[in-house]
């Protein structure tokens, strides 16, 4: 059997017919994965032994039939090291599975490894990883994007059926999907349980799939989503088959174009996205001009809220119980401070300082509370827009994947500004999908489709129709 170029749906169909020898398939899959790893460093851990155990007990009545799944390293996987890209969690082997993982396993997905990311998700280019920087398979001098960089890069590089599970706090699924030329689906906040996710910012974190096609992301979302009593913020919705939104036309659908999302973006990226919008119009959609006047406030509001939440979440990492642990000498304050200083990385320290500062007595109202009120305004903007249109369309990122040599020159403020188009929708907790829409400087450009809360169906429908044209 020829496995290269095989799609996820073909793999499932052939497997159901009994045409796939799982062991043979995986021996080739790991051979390929090792080759990719040597070239691009997309993994913190390749879990071949664990996969072999899963293959032995595989139930062939399941929906995924033994499909290979890679998992972002901040999602807990039983028996497989989960570091969230941080040295402070080196050696941590969760004794349990995240809900998204156990749901995948129930449907016959096989975990093949844990993908590289920025430490705790703190970054836009995956350059803040403690386990090496993942390289873009299209051009190794360029970034995969972040923070789910390994997930995006490997999804592009592997020429065999595979789906990645990523996670987004402020754009960490959309950005690498755009930079690597794959599809990334960020669901509504609370659609997928966060149980077992190593938190960055609780009110923003969302687990979601990345894959080569829209339909594959829809399939995976159907499996991992749904209410979970183990996560209090998980939405009370039933699981849904999102693949039923694929294969449809988009005649008469109203697609809004937020004018503020075209400010300060690369000219050629804008051109490619405008062409994509024209194609949506050709497919029968009505294009409507929209304004989201609060767009310019999204960056400061996001970075305040996210770092405040992160600075409290990271308090638990102190060199005790799991991960990096030194000899617990001296007073606890001294031991905790030394351990945290030693094992946390540059950007983690920056965000802890920023977040701690923004919630200190005397600054809390000026920064944190203000940001939360601005968040309300941003959500109101989106709600007003979705009264008029079904879906919003914009560029995913303001440019193509940058070169590492250019990233080095950027200041923290300049790096944060790159998230301009993704942080607004992430603050609002609305679903979004990035689909490839052509290239610029030979690098992929992403079209970003945003939907109202719980309207994943509509963005999948539009993204799929666009992908098939």
């Amino acid at each position, binding site marked *: 059997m020829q496995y290269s170029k095989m799609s996820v749906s073909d793999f499932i169909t052939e497997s159901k017919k009994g045409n796939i020898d799982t062991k043979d398939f995986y021996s080739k899959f790991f051979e390929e994965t090792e080759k990719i790893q040597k070239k691009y460093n997309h993994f913190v851990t390749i879990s071949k032994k664990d996969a072999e155990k899963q293959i032995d007990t595989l139930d062939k009545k399941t929906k995924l039939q033994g499909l290979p799944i890679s998992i972002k390293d901040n999602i807990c996987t039983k028996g497989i090291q989960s570091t969230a890209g941080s040295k402070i969690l080196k*050696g941590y*082997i969760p*004794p349990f599975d995240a809900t998204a993982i156990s749901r995948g396993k129930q449907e016959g997905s096989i975990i093949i490894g844990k993908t590289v990311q920025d430490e705790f998700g703190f970054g836009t280019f995956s350059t803040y990883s403690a386990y090496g920087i993942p390289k873009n398979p299209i051009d190794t001098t360029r970034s995969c994007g972040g923070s789910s960089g390994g997930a995006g890069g490997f999804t592009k590089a592997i020429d065999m059926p595979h789906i990645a599970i990523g996670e987004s706090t402020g754009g960490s699924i959309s950005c690498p999907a755009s930079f690597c030329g794959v599809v990334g689906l960020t669901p*509504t*906040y*609370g659609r997928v349980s966060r149980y077992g996710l190593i938190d960055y910012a609780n009110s*923003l974190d969302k687990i979601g799939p990345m894959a080569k096609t829209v339909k594959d992301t829809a399939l995976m979302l159907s499996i991992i989503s749904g209410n979970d*009593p183990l996560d*209090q*913020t998980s939405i009370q919705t039933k699981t849904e088959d999102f693949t039923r939104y694929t294969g449809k036309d988009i005649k008469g659908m109203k697609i809004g174009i937020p004018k503020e999302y075209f400010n300060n973006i690369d000219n050629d990226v804008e051109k490619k996205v405008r062409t994509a919008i024209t194609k949506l119009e050709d497919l029968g959609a009505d294009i409507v001009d929209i304004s989201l006047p609060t767009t*310019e*406030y999204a*960056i*400061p*509001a996001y970075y305040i809220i996210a770092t405040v939440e992160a*600075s409290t979440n990271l*308090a638990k990492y*102190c060199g*005790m*119980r*799991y*991960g990096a*642990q030194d000899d*617990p000498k*001296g*007073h*606890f*304050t001294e*031991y*905790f*401070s030394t351990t*945290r*200083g*030693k094992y*946390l990385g540059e950007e983690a*320290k*920056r965000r802890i*300082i*920023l977040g*701690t*500062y923004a919630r*200190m007595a005397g600054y809390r109202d000026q920064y944190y*509370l*203000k*940001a*939360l*009120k*601005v*968040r*309300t*305004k941003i*959500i109101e903007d989106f709600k007003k827009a979705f009264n008029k249109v079904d879906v919003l369309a914009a560029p995913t990122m303001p440019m193509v994947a940058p070169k590492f040599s250019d990233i080095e020159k950027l*200041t*923290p*403020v300049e790096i*944060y500004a790159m998230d301009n188009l993704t942080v607004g929708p992430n*603050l*609002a*907790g*609305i679903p979004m999908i990035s689909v490839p829409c052509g290239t610029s400087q030979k690098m992929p450009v992403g079209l970003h489709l945003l939907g109202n809360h719980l309207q994943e169906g509509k963005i999948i429908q539009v993204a799929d129709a666009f992908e098939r044209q």
Partner: protein
Amino acid sequence: MTERIEKVANIARLELTDKEKSTLEKDLDNILDSFKKLEKIDTDNTEPTFQPIEVKNIMREDTIEKSLKQKDALTNAKETEDGYFKGPKAI
């Protein structure tokens, strides 16, 4: 000039080198300066949003359910004693 960073780092229990302190001092200034933009937007009659989706408290029966075994919960700890995590001196 790094007193502010030292105060914040102390609250965050984060030991920093002198070099880190001066870099972070500069970064904090630049970042906070870029956040000044928020002063322009009127939020006097706006409520803060802590959760993007309305979350209700959900109660469950107070019954004993199966959970992680103590032995498994301790597997990642280097220092344990009598089934407990062992940490540094607190007093």
